């Protein structure tokens, strides 16, 4: 994985000094809260429901064990012994003191980490495929391109006060595991007819209150123009994105209002101009970064044999491991969704353990997924049983990846000042319901996503089953959506009808799954059945 050189280190060290100075000026009264807010947000520091919250960047979801240990140390030293992994592949802490924040950033900088641009109206942490470098279906590892973009977007002086936040995702596989088309810019690394590698740009996707699937605006940008093209996309947005209404300020609205053709025309015009400005790093820089992402020293003779005589282990293997490109290895997913647990939360002890296991069994590498789980990307099959035993002993052995129990949930009204309703208790009750009725396995792949408000941090639009918490005259109320999907066949969920109470929504979800089980054809997932039979039968059952 990528390691900082003296320049990268100087940048994060400078950032710590800058924020220490800004924090001092705020505490001394030289900065008002209005002036300080965007500065702290661009260092990931929110003022949340109970305290300050710090969001730490995990660039493209990749980190090593030393970094993971520091994340656990921060949880113990400055917070309350746990962290929350987010749908942006980051981690956040809920009980941070402003006066500690500069010290935390310094602890992070010591292991090549930061909280730069994890919030605010700027280019956010670049997300990517959590199986990058390990998946069998990838064209090439997408992370070098993400790292190139990370450096370009860090402190980009023209784009620190955009109309609104800006999220970029880079993938390079046939299968989209990162909801690429639901980003402000989604980049797919592709090969053209001539066999050259380049980038397809999808611009103007997003969730939030007006979900949109990003249209393709250019099918091939040569790799030696990647930064220049990105800069053109951003400049058009910075100049013409709406600033009169916060809720219409995302680039998806600009692309929608201008039309894809007109936005593309403006980008191409800006691109042609910027090509003359010498802003593109040389290909040698991309090559330098790529050298950090070579394969680890796989055991070429590793065996594919796996003893599945232990049924609990066999279930975990079936549900939580994914084929690796290297024979004898698998991608192991650690579910942070124990039945009745808080999705994405992990204790400091669990974070330390995952760090140790990564060091011992996965070439010192971990990934954070947008589904709020952790991946050990390169595990030898021969080590898998031992690994699983250690995970299981620490409460990390839930065998439920991509099932109805593997729920994405935002922090909701338990933690978030924007939320209208709590998300976590709903997730807890649903996972308990299905664990109790024993249908989790029978239901197969079923992606359930819960947001506690219309900002959609819990990706409810993209859930096969989505739940949106709303405020109904001061009471929590939950709307049900069906048919969303974040993958290659991206679709947005549709609301079934009137909302439900907390217990009512759990019943409604169960009824929807009963319709699926009754109606499904051979080999169909929940989503497939919904797409085939439509909303009506589900509605009949849910509102009967």
């Amino acid at each position, binding site marked *: 994985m990528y390691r900082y050189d003296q320049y990268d280190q100087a940048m994060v060290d400078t950032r710590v000094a800058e924020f220490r100075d800004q924090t001092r000026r705020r505490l001394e009264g030289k900065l008002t*809260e209005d002036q300080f807010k965007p500065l702290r947000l661009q260092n990931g520091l929110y003022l949340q429901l109970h305290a300050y919250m710090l969001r730490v960047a995990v660039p493209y979801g990749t980190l090593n064990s030393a970094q993971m240990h520091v994340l656990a140390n921060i949880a113990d030293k400055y917070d309350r012994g746990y962290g929350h992994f987010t749908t942006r592949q980051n981690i956040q802490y809920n009980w941070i003191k402003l006066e500690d924040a500069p010290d935390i950033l310094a602890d992070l900088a010591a292991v090549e980490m930061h909280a730069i641009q994890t919030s605010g109206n700027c280019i956010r942490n670049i997300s990517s495929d959590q199986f990058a470098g390990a998946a069998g279906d990838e064209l090439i590892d997408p992370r070098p391109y993400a790292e190139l973009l990370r450096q370009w977007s860090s402190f980009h002086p023209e784009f620190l006060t955009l109309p609104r936040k800006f999220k970029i995702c880079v993938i390079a596989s046939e299968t989209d595991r990162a909801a690429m088309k639901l980003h402000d810019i989604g980049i797919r690394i592709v090969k053209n007819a001539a066999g050259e590698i380049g980038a397809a740009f999808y611009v103007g996707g997003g969730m939030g209150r007006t979900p949109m699937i990003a249209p393709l605006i250019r099918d091939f940008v040569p790799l030696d123009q990647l930064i220049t093209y990105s800069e053109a996309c951003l400049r058009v947005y910075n100049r013409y994105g709406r600033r009169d209404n916060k809720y219409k300020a995302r680039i998806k609205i600009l692309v929608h209002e201008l039309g894809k053709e007109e936005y593309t025309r403006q980008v191409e015009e800006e691109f042609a101009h910027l090509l003359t400005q010498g802003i593109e790093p040389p290909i040698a820089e991309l090559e330098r970064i790529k050298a950090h992402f070579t394969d680890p020293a796989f055991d070429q003779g590793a065996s594919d044999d796996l003893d599945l005589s232990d049924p609990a282990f066999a279930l975990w293997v079936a549900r939580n491991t994914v084929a690796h490109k290297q024979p004898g290895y698998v991608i192991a997913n650690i579910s942070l969704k124990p039945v009745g647990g808080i999705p994405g939360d992990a204790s400091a002890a669990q974070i330390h353990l995952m760090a140790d296991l990564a060091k011992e069994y996965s070439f010192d590498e971990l990934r954070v997924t947008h589904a709020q789980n952790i991946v050990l990307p390169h595990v030898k099959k021969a080590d898998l049983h031992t690994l699983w035993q250690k995970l299981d002993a620490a409460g990390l052995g839930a065998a439920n990846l991509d099932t109805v129990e593997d729920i994405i949930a935002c922090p909701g009204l338990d933690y978030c000042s924007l939320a209208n309703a709590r998300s976590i208790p709903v997730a807890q009750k649903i996972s308990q319901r299905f664990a109790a009725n024993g249908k989790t396995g029978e239901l197969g792949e079923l992606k359930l996503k819960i947001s506690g408000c219309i900002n959609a941090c819990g990706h409810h639009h993209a859930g096969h089953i989505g739940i949106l918490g709303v405020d109904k005259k001061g009471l929590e109320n939950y709307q049900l959506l069906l048919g969303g999907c974040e993958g290659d066949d991206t679709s947005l969920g549709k609301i079934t009808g009137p909302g439900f109470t907390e217990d009512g929504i759990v019943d409604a979800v169960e009824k929807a799954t009963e319709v699926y089980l009754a109606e499904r054809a051979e080999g169909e997932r929940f989503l497939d059945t919904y797409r085939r039979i439509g909303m009506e039968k589900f509605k009949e059952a849910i509102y009967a």
Partner: protein
Amino acid sequence: MKILTGNDLKSGAVVWWTGYDWSIHVEDAVDVGDQADAILQREEGARRVNASYAIDAEPDGERGVRPAHIKDRIRALGPTVRPDLTLKPADPNAGNWVI
């Protein structure tokens, strides 16, 4: 009644106006009548509180004060899904007060 709340600037802790200071316990909150704006302006200016605002609340027996909106009740108590991290970790019914 009208009560005042906000966050401590340094720690971020949720605080409530007691009439002369800020407390982390909502039961210490006092009715400020029509003085909300004046008090908040003064306290923000002195950096004794951050992100402050006035809310409706009602007297609530032995618990003292109950904010009108669930969001402020969760702020007053702590996350309902982590009773151990709330201000009343030993009270099994604390969560019911929120809802």
